[in-house]
């Protein structure tokens, strides 16, 4: 085994460290203190980070992205998270769904969606799976067709009409494009009756509800999504109808689309821990207590 970092990996790590220290850390606590969960977000930091490549670093090179490998992504994640776990997660949420685009979208869809994503510093991605009555059931689906997500999609000619509701969805209130899992066969179990759609923010009939008021990760926006006869073109169906699950599995994934999810969270937590330990060490080295020494 060889744990030596390549020059390119090192370079990403150093850029991330500098950005975290100079740009993220100074705003981290003040963003955290803002009481209204919708107001914690700050586009400036997203734009600055995007210009350095932190939004698009997981898009393959042939599509104009940075094509970094998983090791680089974990390194960058840990560095950014040292300064703010939630701001870094907002960036890496885009990596997660960049992976999904690369793995699951058709060439035509990649052309249509990756290009604007790459060009626009404020273009963020998300994926809506969870619903009020279905959380774990979408991750470990029981065979019963009644279990799991209920958001319904029905086909009318070249369009699909979506009705229902999602909750807890990351980047909901700030994203421009979402993967949405919807039930296309309510009589089949979840895995056999669900289709994945690409839903742009400005889709008619689609709006964002409340932003959840989390106790941590304040910057990170988790919102409700409401679909009232939302109309999505058939061209936005990802993979086969009733097969939302298939293509990521072909790519060796059993996590329901979170190709990168576990690695991402682990690296993020490592960054937080790293910084906490660093602060504790500094305190222990500098704070004087105990009369025995004085």
């Amino acid at each position, binding site marked *: 085994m060889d744990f030596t970092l390549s020059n390119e990996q090192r370079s990403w790590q150093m850029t991330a460290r500098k950005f975290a220290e100079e740009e993220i850390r100074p705003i981290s606590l003040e963003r955290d203190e803002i009481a209204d969960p919708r107001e914690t977000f700050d586009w400036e930091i997203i734009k600055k980070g995007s210009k350095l490549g932190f939004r698009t670093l997981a898009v393959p090179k042939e599509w104009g992205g940075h094509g970094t490998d998983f090791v680089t992504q974990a390194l960058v994640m840990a560095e950014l998270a040292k300064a703010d776990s939630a701001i870094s997660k907002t960036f890496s949420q885009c990596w997660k769904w960049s992976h999904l685009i690369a793995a699951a979208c058709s060439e035509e869809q990649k052309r249509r969606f990756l290009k604007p994503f790459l060009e626009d510093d404020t273009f963020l991605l998300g994926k809506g799976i969870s619903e009020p009555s279905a959380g774990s059931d979408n991750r470990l689906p029981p065979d*019963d067709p009644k*279990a799991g997500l209920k958001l319904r999609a029905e086909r009318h000619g070249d369009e699909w009409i979506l009705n229902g509701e999602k*909750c*807890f969805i990351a980047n909901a209130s700030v994203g421009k494009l979402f993967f949405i899992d919807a039930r296309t066969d309510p009589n089949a179990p979840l895995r056999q009756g669900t289709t994945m759609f690409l839903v742009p923010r400005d889709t008619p009939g689609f709006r964002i509800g409340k932003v*959840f008021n*989390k106790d941590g990760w304040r910057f990170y926006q988790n919102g409700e999504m409401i679909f009232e006869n939302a109309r999505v073109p058939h061209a936005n169906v990802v993979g086969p109808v009733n097969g939302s699950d298939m293509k990521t599995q072909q790519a060796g994934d059993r996590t329901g689309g979170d190709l990168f999810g576990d690695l991402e969270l682990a690296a993020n937590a490592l960054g937080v821990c790293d910084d906490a330990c660093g602060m504790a060490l500094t305190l222990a080295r500098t704070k004087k207590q105990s*009369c025995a020494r004085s």
Partner: protein
Amino acid sequence: MYNLHLSPEQLQIRDTVRDFVVEVIKPLALKPERLEARARPLLVQALDKAAEMGLRTLALSEDCGGAGADNLTCCIVTEELAAGDPDVAAVLAQTSTLAQALFDRLMTAEQRARFLPPFLTDHRYHLALAEHEADRDAALGINYHRPQTSHAPFKTAAVRAGDGWVVSGSKDGVVGASLATLFVVRASVGEGGIATLLVPRDTPGLSVTETGTATRSRHGACGAVAFDDCRVPAENFLGVESPLAADAGRHIPQDQALNLGIGRAAYEAALDYAQVRTQGGRPIIEHQAIGAKLAEIAIRLEVARAAIWQAAWASDHPDAFADRSLPDLPLTTIAAVFASEAIYRAVKDAAECFGAMGVMRDMPLQKYVHDARICLHAGAGNSEAKLRIAEALARYRRPASAAVLAAE
């Protein structure tokens, strides 16, 4: 004899307080706007009602006008109250315990005649102990086994001036500071001496700064108290000992009972939720993963309660140490370390039963996690507590605070 039968009176007061928490405290404490807020003002209304029920004077002897409850009963009541609101529980526990110490034990007849009647008639009359100082060394360190050369003094000083004292300095982490009428203040009096003085809130030069909910390290309307040349009459001199820590490590485990109440609130919430939330085709309590989690929570809380009740009973029966019924150990400190760690874990597990809802500010779970975390650091904190237990194991006797003082 160590007896775990609660008396009819104990059962009755537990039920009464439990009903009071369900009917009065919880509806106030669980209001969404209160859960979401970073600042949670003290529930004064509930506190007043509790005082009317006699919970402010629970430990005070019947002769002095209180209920004369023993320490175990006080702990039972504190657990119940804290399951509703830890701040209300902490303020009542503090006033009740101090009232017993002051009026039943430490005050002179003259002082009692002066302070007791107004205390009894005014339900909003609370007591607070101003002892802790921000950067004061806790007089204990890695050298716990070596004799100490000097006792770390308080920075707050009381200086004789004419027929009284002048107090200057500041204290922090004072439970009940924001509403106390009378402060029991610990101060240095020169040459290593320490005095305890009674300082009324309206003394000129005394000011209180409330600690924000987000930054405090203790439950119970905490605050900092500053003394800017406060003149205190000689008659308000109380003595030299700390009123509460007379028997180090064996005092009433009231903070631990409070901690237990927080754990129970989280546990009860998780137990209820696990029976109504359905995933995987059945209420999640029927999944072994959740069942085992709830079982672990129950184990931690029950064992913590056993340790706390034993320490409470021991503080009611100090002779049980002398006759070797109980081990020669600081049982309250032991209960504190075990309970705070076990309950913090239990509360975290309870929150996890809620999935994503467990981290939302409009749900109480995140509050329970914060509340339980404070208990890890309340008092001197667990790291120091372990060293104090080690002191006892090493049979180290800390030097008595240097003799005081011309005042008596």
